[in-house]
């Protein structure tokens, strides 16, 4: 195991892998900094680019983008009071007041140091947990694997953020879309509707681009505008950067607690990074000696959310790799990237691609550190990106997304498919349906059917009565009904 861990580490420093990691970090920072284009749009647009790439290079590249996006978003939160991504919203509560007091450099350094260290904490904890989780996953047979996949799909309700009905329907539609094309055991092309194109099934990349990238083009063209038009100004960074680094070590115990909370929340699938950052912000305020200073520019208010936000990725990556259950929407897309590079995601990952799993764990550590260093040096230059009129960016994104759809198989029907799914993606985005759940269902759909049919043929209809299967069924039911149970418990408590 130690050898494989070391092998995974060395892979990161292979020239091609490292170069793409740095490129991924730079792209992630830019997309994180531009408000309105999140990491999900960035991932979906770059997914076609990894087609045919070496799996290590491709997955390290995409994971680096995910890690850097959150870091980039925190810069604009501090300097111009605009969170680049959702989780950065907690950072601006104290980050921007610090910048207004002339302590922007200190706030930035604290944000980036706690973010980098949080990433290291989450990554190390993930590496430590892999040897514990691995034997457990490897002991599973096909019935257990089916229920594990089912558990993953059931977490769609968690990703659905309170809209359980729409989340479940979205996940169900994703699974059904995955079943288009040749069926594994019978060889029958399902749902081809007489067309040759659909006999091969729906491809992941046009679907992802239609659901995520093209709707962003519409939103950018309709509602986007440059920060310069909103009258925002960039705070001066100043020269107290080192004070900010020292602040993290002055509050090291707070950093450790928040990183641990972030990692645990990351392990729980479907709980967003926003939850982790705001829980940690609240925790920092509760345990502070001067809670009245929160919201007015205290450094604890930026250390807590940033360490949690970056530590979360390590936890989310663990459930994604070990169980095939993505911890976040970005991880659901990353799971799709596994298919693009020819790796079947799911519980077999730790058996067949252990070195790659470790490489990804190391990536979550090193990409965070690289992005923090780059931002510490070039923060002010990066912020200028927010002053580009995003409406002008719309045609460029549209062009790259269209070529991305075409590049999958050199087929114009893929482009048409992507445009058609834009209707679903845009509707889902603005009417409360869940696009991440659709992608999760799509990625896990075929795997679920395969395990289901193998279990049914091998063990008969009683395959769900095996002990681990029963445990997994109970966890699934509890997971799906947790929201209802929590509301019921809260109501009873309130009455009493």
């Amino acid at each position, binding site marked *: 195991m130690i050898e494989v861990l070391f092998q995974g580490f060395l892979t990161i420093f292979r020239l091609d892998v490292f170069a793409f990691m740095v490129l991924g970090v730079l792209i992630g920072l830019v997309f994180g900094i531009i408000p309105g284009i999140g990491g999900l749009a960035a991932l979906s647009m770059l997914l076609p680019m990894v087609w045919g790439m070496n799996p290590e290079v491709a997955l390290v590249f995409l994971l680096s983008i995910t890690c850097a996006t959150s870091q980039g978003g925190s810069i604009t939160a501090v300097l111009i009071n605009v969170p680049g991504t959702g989780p950065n919203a907690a950072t601006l509560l104290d980050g921007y007041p610090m910048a207004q007091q002339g302590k922007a450099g200190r706030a930035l350094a604290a944000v980036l140091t706690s973010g980098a260290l949080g990433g290291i904490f989450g990554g190390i904890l993930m590496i430590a947990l892999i040897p514990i989780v691995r034997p457990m996953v490897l002991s599973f047979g096909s019935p257990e694997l089916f229920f594990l996949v089912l558990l993953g799909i059931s977490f769609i309700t968690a990703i659905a953020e309170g809209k359980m009905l729409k989340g479940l329907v979205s996940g169900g*539609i994703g699974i*059904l879309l995955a079943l288009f094309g040749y069926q594994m*055991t*019978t060889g*029958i092309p399902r749902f081809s509707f007489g067309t040759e194109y659909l006999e091969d099934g729906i491809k992941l990349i046009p679907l992802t681009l239609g659901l995520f990238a093209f709707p962003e083009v519409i*939103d950018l063209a309709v509602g986007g505008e440059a920060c310069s038009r909103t009258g925002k100004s960039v705070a001066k960074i100043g020269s107290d950067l080192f004070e900010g680094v020292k602040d993290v070590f002055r509050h090291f115990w707070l950093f450790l607690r928040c990183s641990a909370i972030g990692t645990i929340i990351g392990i729980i699938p479907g709980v967003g990074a926003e939850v982790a950052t705001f829980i940690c912000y609240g925790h920092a305020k509760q345990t502070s000696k001067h809670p009245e200073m929160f919201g007015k520019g205290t450094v604890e208010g930026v250390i807590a959310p940033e360490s949690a936000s970056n530590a979360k990725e390590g936890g989310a990556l663990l459930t994604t790799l070990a169980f095939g259950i993505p911890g976040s929407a970005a991880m659901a897309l990353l799971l799709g990237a596994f298919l693009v590079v020819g790796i079947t995601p799911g519980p077999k990952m730790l058996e067949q691609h252990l070195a790659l799993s470790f490489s990804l764990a190391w990536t979550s550590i090193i990409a965070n550190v690289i992005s923090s260093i780059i931002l510490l040096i070039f923060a002010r230059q990066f912020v200028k990106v927010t002053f580009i009129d995003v409406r002008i960016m719309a045609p460029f994104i549209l*062009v790259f997304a269209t070529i991305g759809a075409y590049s999958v198989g050199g087929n114009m029907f893929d482009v048409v498919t992507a445009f058609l799914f834009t209707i679903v993606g845009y*509707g889902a985005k*603005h009417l409360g349906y869940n696009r991440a759940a659709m992608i999760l269902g799509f990625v896990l759909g075929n795997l679920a059917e395969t395990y289901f049919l193998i279990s049914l043929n091998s063990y008969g209809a009683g395959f769900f009565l095996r002990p681990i299967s029963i445990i997994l069924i109970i966890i699934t039911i509890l997971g799906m009904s947790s929201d209802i149970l929590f509301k019921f418990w809260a109501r009873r408590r309130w009455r009493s």
Partner: protein
Amino acid sequence: MIINLLFSILLLAFLIVIDLYTFKYPLEARIFPWLVGIPATVLMLIQVVKDISLLRRREEAKPARPTGSRRAYAEIIAWMVGFLLAIYVLGFLAGILLFVFLYLKMHGLSLSRSLALAAGLSIAIYGIFTLGMDMRLYPGLIYSLYLNSTNL
């Protein structure tokens, strides 16, 4: 909101078509699609009923909608459809050049900047995809017809 209801009906129609279409397959090929499709259809039906009742009560709890006028939506949709048609007729490179130039020019950029950006993007795409990745970009209907006529 009527849009909510229409979108839900669209998804419901898709699910019903899939459920019905599944009938024609042998048991092994239809068992899993039904296992997923039938419950999803039932849930979708509940959602449609909810949307209808919401519409009747005319609740003001509107979903988060992006800012922007109907005209702006119509414009970007027209641009997207136009881009798709331009690619189909003119091919990727000429289509991109024309689309990006017109879009930027109509959105207030100067003639020279619009042309420079559009040409730069087309050249970059040709360099990355055709020369770098050896990918044959779709040449367009006109070019294909021209090739056919010269062969004849």
